């Protein structure tokens, strides 16, 4: 099952490599990984999406917790949560394609953030399925380049991950 694990990590050199190393060392999957400092500059927030049986996920969270630099973590998929991923996508756009793409971008509530006579660069945020659906809708033949940020997530309601 797909899981989103959110981690508060000491913002120190080498801390991220321990997390990444753990996944390869123990044969766990990383589907996406995002990391950036938080409002408290001594902490980084890391979000990793992974797949595995319940037992594997339990091991992943336990092994992550064992890393000295991991301060706290939560499996967001255990409760209701919001997940977002940002995509920048460059599409071939000339002639009649331009209006069609514009319409699709509007439907997906994206924005065209850069324009040339033959290319649109589109920005789109949403959960990963929505981004996949957009790529499918515009058709892969017109896609010149895709860059995705990986998933960030946060719990709904009053639950917070903080120290």
């Amino acid at each position, binding site marked *: 099952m797909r899981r989103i694990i959110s981690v508060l990590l000491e913002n120190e050199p*080498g801390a991220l490599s*321990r997390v990444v190393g753990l996944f390869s060392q123990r044969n766990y999957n990383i589907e996406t990984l995002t990391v950036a400092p938080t409002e408290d500059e001594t902490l980084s927030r890391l979000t990793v999406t992974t797949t595995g049986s319940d*037992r594997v996920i339990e091991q992943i969270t336990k*092994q992550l917790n064992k890393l000295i630099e991991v301060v*706290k973590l939560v499996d967001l998929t255990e409760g209701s949560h919001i997940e977002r991923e940002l995509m920048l996508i460059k599409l071939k756009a000339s002639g009649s394609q331009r209006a069609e793409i514009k319409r699709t971008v509007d439907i997906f509530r994206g924005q065209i953030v850069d324009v040339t006579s033959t290319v649109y660069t589109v920005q789109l945020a949403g959960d990963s399925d929505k981004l996949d659906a957009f790529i499918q809708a515009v058709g892969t033949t017109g896609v010149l380049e895709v860059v995705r940020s990986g998933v960030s997530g946060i719990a709904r309601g009053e639950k917070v991950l903080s*120290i």
Partner: protein
Amino acid sequence: MELLSGADMLIRSLQDEGIEYIYGYPGGAALHIYDALFRQDKVKHILVRHEQAAVHMADGYARASGKPGTVLVTSGPGATNTITGIATAFMDSIPMVVLCGQVASTLIGEDAFQETDMIGVSRPVVKHNISVRHPSEIPEVIRKAYYIAATGRPGPVVVDIPKDMTTPNERYEYEYPKKVKLRSYNPAIRGHAGQIRKAAEMLLAAKRPVIYAGGGVVLGKASDQLTELAHMLGHPVTNTLMGIGGFPASDKQSLGWLGMHGSYESNMAMHHSDLILAVGARFDDRVTNATEKFCPGARIIHIDIDPASISKTVEADVPIVGPVDSVLKELISLVRESKAKPDKDALKAWWKQIDEWRAFHGMRYEKSDTHIKPQEVIEALHRLTNGDAYVTTDVGQHQMFTAQYYKFNKPNRWINSGGLGTMGFGLPAAMGVKLSYPDDEVICVTGEGSIQMNIQELSTCKQYNLPVKIVNLNNQALGMVKQWQDMNYESRHSQSYMESLPDFIRLAEAYGHVGIRIDRKEDLESKLKEAFAMKDKLVFIDIYVDPHEHVYPMQVARGSMKDMWLSKTERV
């Protein structure tokens, strides 16, 4: 406040930490530190002949004393040579701090002479590692390193020290921190009361219980509590290879150790049990055999300081995260106060069954009129040392024979590389023990394959006068490899025979020690006595044992715990 250079701060920190011995080898990036070491006499340095041995020495010391060992090496090859030793300690949860020199911080990343990313290289085999980024951090880093190494589930910590952190003429205020607090590291200090209560109820209701006690009992200094609880309950106890000595082997409730080469009765009892109390054990594959066939009728209570060890390979019904000594203490008082009492009739029937298994097999081997059997050597060692020696081993058949036939009644005396299985461990580990326990008998049981992996340390033994006894069970082959080839590869002995063995007697003599060869059965006892009478000498005892002997019992691969070979021809 005193002003000290980084190098002096490092050595002062070791003094303030109470470190008596460090084991190491100098080199360019560590020279400021070695100079600081020279200018004091509280911390004593033992110069090994290869860095791997320094780590095993620290490891042997840590296993015997329960305190962290300390290693000092230089950057690059000095640091990388420690990796096998660090991995050995990591797998067996041994507390240790490894101080590594590093090229100056201004050179890092430039492929400088003797530069290796030790933080990166060691990452998968350490509990933690820390790079010093400013000389003034050194006291805090050292305090933290020992704190992390020794608390919770212990393990090795590497400290990487770039050369410019120890420059002699840059001085900073020195104060050794009294306490260390890490917001991200808080090992459990007691188990969950509700879970412990549940465990006590289950233990009192059990009809076919087994206590399965691992290395955590030894590391967690909980042998007394384990023994008390087992006696109160009247339950049988089996130890893991790492847990040997955690429960007295001569106690009538002891089943010996379990797993691949464990006793018949312990494996049978595990398989047929209805309740397993796992204490500081990790359901290692060498214990469980095929996990899907593991102990089908048993519910499992699992006590461990490391939550990640619980339900990793085998699901626990009642997980208890906490230090084993405190959890066992709570269990003892709950059992004592409980109105419910152990089910006497059920336990009587269970013991009757266990006694039948014991009578059916027990620990036995076939004697020979012509050959010295490795097992009888170990039995003789046990007799001659009153079962009270510190015994280290290397890895292979000799290790299994020693674990089977030297009956340990005390913890911390059986010292082997159980998790990583590191050949070359035995001699340096024995040296580390002997240095700190000079009045005790320290034996390294080894084989002619393993001993050659760190034989250079005979020189270190001479320099520091470390009169350990080396018992070489010489079968002129890599015995365990050969056994597997006999059993699984139709006796095709691919690369398991050693041609051109050295004359170990002359080799020992060349290093300034005594060598004794034993190749006749009738000489075994008398020559061993002769060797052990030489209290102040290292004696290399080269014993020619039956080259065809196999280790039994041996679990059948991919079977359950009860599927075993009992000899070359009997399978149950």
